[in-house]
């Protein structure tokens, strides 16, 4: 099992991996929690001109002047570029303006479908989760989206109990048939490694393993026979500068503490 490494906590590793998925100048629909930090980190490092969109009705292109725990914190409104309606920023999403977005997940399957609504146990409701929020919208309408979640066997299942946020459904062609205009998950960043999706079959493929983790660990914690890339890599550890910035962004380690 992955744990905190010498250099950093596991959460820090995941946030840095998330940040690296953002290219400079991209328009990013920023979610809550770890993705929020990932976006702020990217802005402060390799993607200074990335633009952040928040579903509350916020557009900003500079980091908040102070650490924030959530997107509605007042420093995130301070000197924003635009404060507006949810339907305006959701319009930007729906009309194809958003390059990349981030979603946390409770349960995911081999085609990247996500469940954050209902966990079933022998056909009966076992756990009610908070629901979609904006996740269903982001998964359907961004040009691509990135999933961030804990890698545990009961979360990585053959088929999710409920599709809150569509991935590739049952494989190639499914999104188009459903009527979705674009997009799909491009990466799954977990506590053990990073998965991407086969461009043809749309099935999840392990492409990177975190420090101190083995492929065996990952297969043992995945509920189906996870495909492994021929070009399997080690997830690069955060640079010193990335860690420095990240610790400024979350000084009390609320999100990224061990």
């Amino acid at each position, binding site marked *: 099992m992955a744990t905190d490494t010498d250099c950093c906590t596991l959460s820090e590793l995941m946030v840095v991996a998330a940040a690296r998925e953002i290219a400079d100048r991209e328009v990013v629909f920023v979610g809550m929690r770890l993705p929020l930090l990932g976006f702020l980190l990217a802005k402060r490092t390799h993607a200074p001109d990335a633009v952040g969109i928040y579903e509350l009705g916020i557009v900003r292109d500079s980091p908040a002047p102070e650490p924030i725990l959530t997107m*509605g*914190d*007042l420093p995130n409104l301070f000197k924003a570029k635009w404060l507006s*309606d949810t339907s305006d920023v959701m319009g930007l999403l729906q009309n194809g303006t958003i390059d990349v977005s981030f979603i946390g997940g409770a349960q995911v399957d081999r085609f990247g479908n996500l469940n954050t609504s209902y966990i079933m146990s022998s056909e009966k409701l076992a756990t009610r989760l908070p629901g979609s*929020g904006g996740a269903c*919208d982001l998964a359907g309408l961004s040009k691509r989206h990135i999933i961030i979640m804990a890698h545990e066997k009961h979360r990585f299942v053959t088929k999710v109990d409920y599709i809150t946020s569509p991935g590739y459904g049952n494989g190639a062609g499914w999104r188009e048939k459903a009527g979705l205009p674009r997009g799909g998950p491009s990466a799954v960043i977990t506590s053990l490694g990073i998965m991407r999706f086969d461009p043809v079959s749309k099935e999840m493929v392990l492409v990177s393993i975190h420090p101190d983790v083995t492929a065996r660990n990952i297969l043992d914690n995945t509920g189906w026979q996870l495909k492994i890339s021929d070009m399997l890599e080690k997830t690069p550890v955060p640079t010193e500068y990335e860690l420095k910035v990240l610790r400024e962004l979350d000084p009390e380690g609320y999100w990224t503490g061990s």
Partner: protein
Amino acid sequence: MAPASKLITLSEALNRYVPDGAEIVMGTSLETLIPFAAGHEIMRQRKRNLTLIGPISDILFDQIVGAGCVGKIRAAWVGNVITGSSYNFRRAVEGGDLKMEDHSNLTVAMALKAGAMGVPFMPALTGLGSDLFKTNTSLKKITCPFTGKTLTAVSAINPDVAIIHAQRSDEYGNAHFWGNLGVTSDACLASRYIIITAEEIVSPDVIESDPNRVITPGFRVSAVVHAPWGAHPSPVPGYYNRDHNAFIEYRSNSKTPQKFEKWMRDWVDNVKTSDDYIRLLGNERVVKLKLINHLLSEPVDYGY
């Protein structure tokens, strides 16, 4: 020819406009300006069988559910923004006591926009491929009459009441609202009654100096309530920051029904007025949450 004042007490406003069984939209700017004071009055009045509507609610919906006031929720997300799941909500849904209509933020926004625009539905591209259609009968798939493509039709929501916390209002219901706006404007226009709770009651001159800042036309507002700190622990632009600790503490204070009962006694039932609430918060907390770094808007001229 001075119009009649709409300024009444919180208790009176909710007595008058929120009967048992009412459909209420609240928490319309998502994480900011959540009308906690009004929500707590709903709990104190032991309303029953309400339907709560909103995109996300942070912990307010969980509290009202815990008080046994809610029969149904139409929302995209119910939980605690910085800690995750919320317990009363989980218990109620898992126990079969609470009906849930599952939305996304975009479908809630479109349902309220349809209500505001007076049309029976709005089209959207979201939801397609998801299971929202299985747990939300107000979504249907339709074929676009122009492109032939599949779309999601989102049925209009016209709540009985919108409860909105605003920064400042005159006594006639003309209120300034700033910061991120969420679905607030459409929620007001879609609703039969609008209750404004405000940090400050100001003279009409203040409001009239900036009509673009008004969130909804005053002639549509039914009641105005003076409710300082009325959105705590959520943040209010111009007034106070988010009280993160309150959200973290609520998580443990709602873990069991017994713990929640005690929390509700202390923070809801034993609180009668804004003053009681501020006293309970304590001076240290109040001071710590107030704004330190100010940024005043550059004026604009509405002259002629």
